[in-house]
């Protein structure tokens, strides 16, 4: 199954998304042969209780090949309990937004969350950049120090960390085997997957759709690497977590 590990649905408060509803996102992916992956709620990013948006999205994903990557802000109280609740309900991953929620990856609350995620066997997607910083409106994204990711992954060896929506220039060094990256955000140069300082076998397809153009993300994947990045990579990712 071809999978997109970085898809979203919902409303983005800062500009109109024409194909942002879950139905549109699923249909657009299916039309391009992508029938599963991890879906996150755009609404949950700005909700004080993200589950208010994540719960309905989880319910709507039932019966599809898609799983919920729930939102978490580790600066909120009882974050570990929130993760537990999400996993019990069926969330398959947790997505962090340090650039939006305003904390550093070296914050103790991140370590606390990673410990909880290790215990829950919950992959952690670390969203580096959602919008081009030149075009932000109201939201000002805080830079994320991605150089800390290899060290974080080494300190939490039972966690699976994914550098997500990460511009190519910010992609961390390869790091340990439990550090992955998705392709969303890499495509700012010609042939963006060539000469990457990151192991090809730990690259997963991500589109950042519908904030970003799904077709652009797909065009970045050379035909000869399509199966590896869209199908085999995600399978290996899930096997590593659940075996």
């Amino acid at each position, binding site marked *: 199954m071809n999978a997109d590990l970085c898809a979203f649905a919902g409303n983005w408060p800062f*500009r109109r998304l024409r194909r942002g509803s879950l139905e549109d996102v699923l249909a657009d992916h299916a039309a391009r042969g992508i029938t599963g992956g991890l879906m996150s709620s755009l609404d949950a990013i700005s909700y004080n209780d993200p589950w208010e948006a994540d719960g309905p999205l989880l319910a709507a994903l039932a019966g599809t090949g898609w799983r919920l990557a729930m939102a978490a802000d580790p600066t909120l109280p009882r974050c570990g309990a929130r993760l537990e609740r999400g996993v019990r309900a069926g969330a398959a991953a947790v997505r962090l937004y340090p650039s939006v929620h305003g904390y550093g990856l070296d914050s103790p609350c991140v370590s606390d969350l990673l410990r909880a995620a290790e215990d829950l066997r919950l992959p952690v997607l670390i969203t580096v950049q959602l919008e081009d910083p*030149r*075009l*932000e*409106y109201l939201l000002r994204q805080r830079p994320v120090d991605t150089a800390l990711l290899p060290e974080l992954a080494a300190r939490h060896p039972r966690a699976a960390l994914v550098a997500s929506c990460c511009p190519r220039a910010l992609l961390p060094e390869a790091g340990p085997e439990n550090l992955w990256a998705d392709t969303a955000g890499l495509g700012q*140069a*010609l042939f963006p997957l060539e000469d990457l300082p990151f192991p090809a076998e730990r690259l997963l397809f991500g589109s950042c759709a519908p904030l*970003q*153009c*799904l077709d652009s993300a797909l065009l970045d994947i050379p035909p000869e690497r399509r199966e590896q990045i869209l199908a085999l990579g995600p399978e290996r990712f899930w096997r590593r977590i659940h075996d």
Partner: protein
Amino acid sequence: MRGEGIIDIHAHLWLGRAERDAALMRRAAERYGIERILVSSLGSHRPDGDEIAALNRQTAALTASDSLFRGYVTVAPELPGSLDALRRGAEDWGAVGMKLWVSCLCDEDVCDRLYDYCAGRGLPVLIHAFAKTAGQLPGESTAENVRRAALRHPDTRFIMAHLGGNCYHGLPLVRDLPNVWADFSGSTRRADDLPYALEQLGAGRLLFGSDMPGSVTASLGQAMAAPMAEAERRAILRDNALALFPSLGGMA
């Protein structure tokens, strides 16, 4: 693919890296079906006359040696001799348009005689325009500057690059100006900018540009995905460029 391919009206050669950039663009042309690439050379933010001459020499050299490429002459209007540089580009080595360098706003008085020359020879003027939240460069035009220039020079044809940077800021400002086209080149790969541009300007005033050696897929993906008739897609990817650049007419 040669013959009916895409025309990319916005790509670059960095000073001193022309061969490397050209090699990348040749590969991209092969992979994505691009028939012609219009390039200009880029250097420092505040170039002197010698640097401008070097930029244009490398553009001229590439366009003379490889028919995949045609060139804009890069002009910094505030420099003495800018009109001569423009003339040399147009008359000596066949530049197809003028690329206005970001060392000066596009509605400053020093640009006027350049625009008059371009109008007389039918040379479109490519203007980098970007309304940034942070990091706006001195001399970096926005759509407001493009609007003022276009109103003052109704016989000159302007291309506002990058949809003005922030399309919601830029496109309404040029919507009523028939002598302004827009390209959607750039590293922005938002899924909704081109549909918005189609509503604002219509397919007839939109041009495909990549900003190579930056990403070509950012623009190409949007052109593939945006909802429009196939004839409109073809217009944006090719036919509008043929109409706007008379010297490409032999390709039709």
